[in-house]
């Protein structure tokens, strides 16, 4: 590594630089490549070689070279060590040759001294720098902390939300103005407290366990509504947010509570909740609360749990409202509500007002129908007690529907539907009573309801059809007419007779549309027969229901149908029930006359079953009396004819003939009956004895024969 002794007395600076660079590269970190380092060292190498040879030796040169090493960051001791070694080895031949060994030693010493001095300066400087940096950093951190503290101190002091800080062992150490105001204490009084002083009887069971979890570091945060006592003993409700402050290594230090007074909000909420779940008039629980309670009972009920319902509706409440006014009506509702609640709510039953004059008593944990009946009797008695309202002595009653069943086996909707139907039974059975739900009756009602609801669709879809039962002359046995009878070809139940649906159609009013269809169909068929058998006199007899007669458009309807079909009115007979005719007065009576004036024949159906005003009969435009089948039944046995029946029939026939009416006997089943009727002077008859009702073709066949 050290070159052999040079013949050249003066060493070359580039050689020295190269050797030097090789020696000290990688001893310290410098920001230079090897080539750059060689270049970097060429100048100091030249200066040192010059200094060795110079007559006027300047010791500052080697000193500066030593210092330059440090400046280039040759800070490791081995950098100096190797530098001195290289200088010794590289410069020794020239020094020897020039008698300058002492100068070389001086030179090396000065390089070392310069290096050492520079290292010392550098060390002091860098130590100074790093200490200054620490101070600067601290000052910066302090400044930031101070600014932050100042900001937050202002925030803390002026916050509208109450803030309190406590140690983890529960001493209150800092509170803000808002918290003091909220609690009614001065700051000094507040910090005399410990956290445990703020217990309140309304505390949720887990408040203090949660607080303990926080103070011991098991959680960092919690939020809940909590009540406190103010200094004056008043209760305040707060929205409390509690956070844990830990040291940097995670040890719990402080507990911060942020407290917002929500007393007003709480009060309002309570009020709103009550309003939402109670009826404003009676202050009883409303429908919503009732359903909530009921659904709660039906959701996951304990095994064997039963539930009972009393659905109560005042009888004739509307009349009271109409008669005495709504104020009295409201007062009545309030009174009844008060009585029901007083006598029933204390037993743990829920008494709710579910609508106008409807109340419901919900019996949880029902033990059976007996308990329910007892409740119903109590409720009835409560309603029955006379009231004095605004000077009016009012007596009122109620009807109740009772349902009781296992909680697992039902839903709220099912229960209410059952109770509603049962209430309707109590009403239908005469009011002022309770009715108990009955599965079979309910099933019947439901199927009736189903049929009723299917009627309009059945009419639209053409599920009805007509059959015709012959009317036969008792004198000569000829066919004088037919009665049109409606049938329903039900898609599931098969063919249904009028007794199974006409009543339903009358209740719903569909009878008007259905009757119009029947009349139209019958008239068209009648006209067809007129065309095919123009020489046969054939009366088409069609039933009119009470509601049809009351329909203001009935005369127009019949006129249109007759015009439409082309049937001469004299071939049309309209059958009305006795009660329909007898109940007529005013408009319906005029209707009856108008129909008769059209030329149609009017018959009274089922004559003798109602209470006919015989005198009245005289003034009616009636052409035929159809005698009820019950009279005819008495003639069934020719050997033992009922004398009274026979007398009545005889009288009726004579009466009819006197009034210029013909008489038709219905339900004639035997030849004996036919004979007897003929002898009594009855004009026509119908019944199985002659023919059952059948399709139009069967009548056509009779006509053709």
């Amino acid at each position, binding site marked *: 590594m050290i070159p052999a002794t040079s013949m050249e007395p003066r060493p070359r600076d580039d050689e020295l630089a190269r050797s030097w660079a090789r020696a000290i*590269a*990688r001893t*310290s*970190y*410098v*920001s230079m*490549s*090897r*080539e750059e380092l060689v270049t970097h060292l060429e100048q100091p190498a030249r200066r040192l070689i010059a200094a060795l040879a110079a007559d006027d030796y300047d010791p500052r040169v080697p000193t500066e070279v030593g210092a330059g090493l440090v400046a*280039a*960051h040759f*800070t*490791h001791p081995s950098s100096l060590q190797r530098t001195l070694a290289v200088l010794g080895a590289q410069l020794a031949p020239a020094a020897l040759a020039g008698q300058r060994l002492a100068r070389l030693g001086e030179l090396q010493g000065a390089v070392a001294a310069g290096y050492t001095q520079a290292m010392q300066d*550098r*060390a002091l400087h*860098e*130590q100074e*720098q*790093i200490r*200054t*940096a*620490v*101070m*600067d*950093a*601290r000052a*910066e*951190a302090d400044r*930031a*902390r101070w600014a*932050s*503290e100042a*900001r*937050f*101190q202002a*925030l*803390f002091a002026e916050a509208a939300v109450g803030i309190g*800080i406590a140690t983890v062992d529960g001493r209150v150490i800092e509170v803000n103005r808002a918290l003091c105001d909220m609690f009614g204490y001065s700051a000094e009084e507040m910090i005399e407290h410990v956290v445990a002083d703020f217990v309140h009887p309304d505390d949720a069971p887990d408040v203090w366990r949660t607080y303990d979890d926080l103070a011991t570091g098991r959680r*960092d945060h919690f939020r809940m509504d909590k009540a406190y006592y103010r200094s004056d003993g008043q209760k305040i409700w707060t929205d409390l947010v509690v*956070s844990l*402050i*830990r040291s*940097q290594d995670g040890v719990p230090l*402080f507990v*911060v509570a942020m407290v917002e007074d929500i007393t007003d909000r709480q009060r309002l909420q309570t009020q709103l909740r009550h309003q939402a779940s109670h009826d404003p008039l009676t202050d009883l629980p409303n429908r919503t609360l009732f359903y909530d309670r009921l659904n709660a009972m039906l959701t996951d009920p304990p095994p064997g749990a039963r539930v009972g319902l009393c659905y109560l509706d005042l009888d004739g409440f509307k009349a009271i409202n109409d008669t005495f006014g709504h104020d009295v009506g409201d007062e009545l509702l309030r009174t009844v509500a008060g009585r029901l609640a007083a006598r029933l709510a204390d037993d743990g039953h829920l008494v709710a007002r579910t609508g106008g004059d409807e109340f419901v008593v919900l019996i949880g944990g029902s033990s059976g129908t007996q308990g329910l009946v007892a409740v119903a009797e109590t409720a009835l008695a409560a309603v029955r007690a006379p009231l004095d309202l605004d000077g009016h002595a009012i007596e009122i009653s109620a009807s109740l529907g009772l349902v009781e069943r296992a909680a697992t086996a039902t839903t709220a909707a099912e229960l209410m539907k059952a109770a509603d139907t049962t209430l309707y039974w109590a009403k239908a059975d005469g009011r002022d009573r309770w009715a108990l739900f009955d599965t079979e009756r309910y099933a019947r009602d439901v199927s009736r309801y189903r049929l009723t609801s299917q009627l309009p669709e059945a009419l639209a879809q053409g599920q009805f059809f007509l059959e015709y039962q012959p009317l036969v002359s008792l004198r000569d046995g000829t066919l004088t007419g037919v009665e049109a009878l409606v049938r329903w070809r039900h898609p599931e139940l098969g063919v249904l007779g009028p007794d199974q649906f006409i009543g339903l159609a009358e209740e719903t009013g569909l009878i008007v549309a259905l009757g119009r269809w029947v009349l139209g169909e019958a008239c068209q068929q009648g006209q067809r027969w007129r065309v095919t058998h123009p020489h046969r006199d054939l009366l088409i007899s069609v039933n009119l229901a009470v509601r049809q007669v009351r329909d203001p458009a009935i005369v127009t309807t019949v006129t249109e149908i007759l015009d439409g079909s082309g049937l001469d009115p004299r071939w049309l007979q309209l059958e009305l029930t006795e009660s329909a005719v007898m109940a007529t007065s005013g408009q319906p009576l005029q209707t009856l006359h108008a129909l008769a004036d059209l030329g149609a024949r009017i018959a009274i159906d089922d004559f003798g079953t109602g209470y006919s005003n015989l005198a009245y009969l005289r003034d009616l435009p009636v052409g035929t009396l159809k005698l009820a089948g019950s009279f005819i039944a008495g003639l069934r046995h020719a050997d033992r004819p009922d004398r009274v029946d026979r007398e009545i029939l005889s009288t009726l026939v004579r009466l009819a003939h006197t009034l210029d009416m013909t008489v038709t006997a219905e339900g004639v089943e035997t030849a004996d009956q036919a004979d007897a009727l003929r002898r009594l002077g009855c004009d026509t008859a119908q019944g199985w004895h002659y023919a059952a009702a059948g399709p139009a073709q069967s009548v056509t066949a009779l006509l053709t024969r």
Partner: protein
Amino acid sequence: MLAGIFRSPRRKGVSVNRPDWAPPEIDVDRPAVARVYDYYLGGLHNFAVDREFAAQVLQAMPDLPTHAQENRAFLRRAVRFLTAQGIDQFVDLGSGIPTVGNVHEVAQRADADSRVVYVDWDPVAVAHSRAILDGNHRASVIAADLRQPGQVLDDPALRQLIDLDRPVAVLLVSVLHFVPDDQRPREIVSEFAKAVAPGSYLVISHASSEGQPEQAARLQALYNKSASPMRVRSRAEISALFGDLTLVDPGVVQMPLWRPDSSDDVGPDVESYPGYAGVARIG
């Protein structure tokens, strides 16, 4: 006390002028990685406690000062390479205590207009850097946490010097081994890469478990007992930090082998060099 209460280090704040990371305490009684590294490089910006810790580390890995030099030499070569590619903006993440051959010295020697922003979260390193950079209008330092790239790049002081619409070099030199896996170093890198303009470069150097596995394990164990846990990574893991960016030649290699100035600069013991580096072009 109040500020501490409201700025709990465990909870995220939302204020723009306060960082939501907590800088390390200014505690000269505990070793700081920046000062310890300065000591490895022969610097004297350190305290007895730093030197004591360094002494323990040097026992575990006696060649560490040389390795540190090689790392700085790589940084110098990488910056020169980047300036040669026309890069004149540098963000040096985890820059530590400024020492000889800082990025701005190297870069501004090549192009006096080069802009350099140093980023560190050690308040002492930041204060020292600020003192060193006083008067240099093209270089500055910000206190920020490199694990939050968005905040770093949104820092107004950084934006004053760095135009993110133009290519920039993002330097992660000898710092990602202080980011453990659960802090998702790969995502951090990719977030920086996504935020910079096409034509930018990413520089990573990283201590490795390869080369001197036993020494590296001892080194890691020592750091793990300090306030700055360490995660040395395999070459494959270090390569993976670049994601799908395009590496410039020679790829991820042991630091002395990354574009050495001359063969003289590559020491004989390069095979066992316990650190890898690479430079990738973005976009």
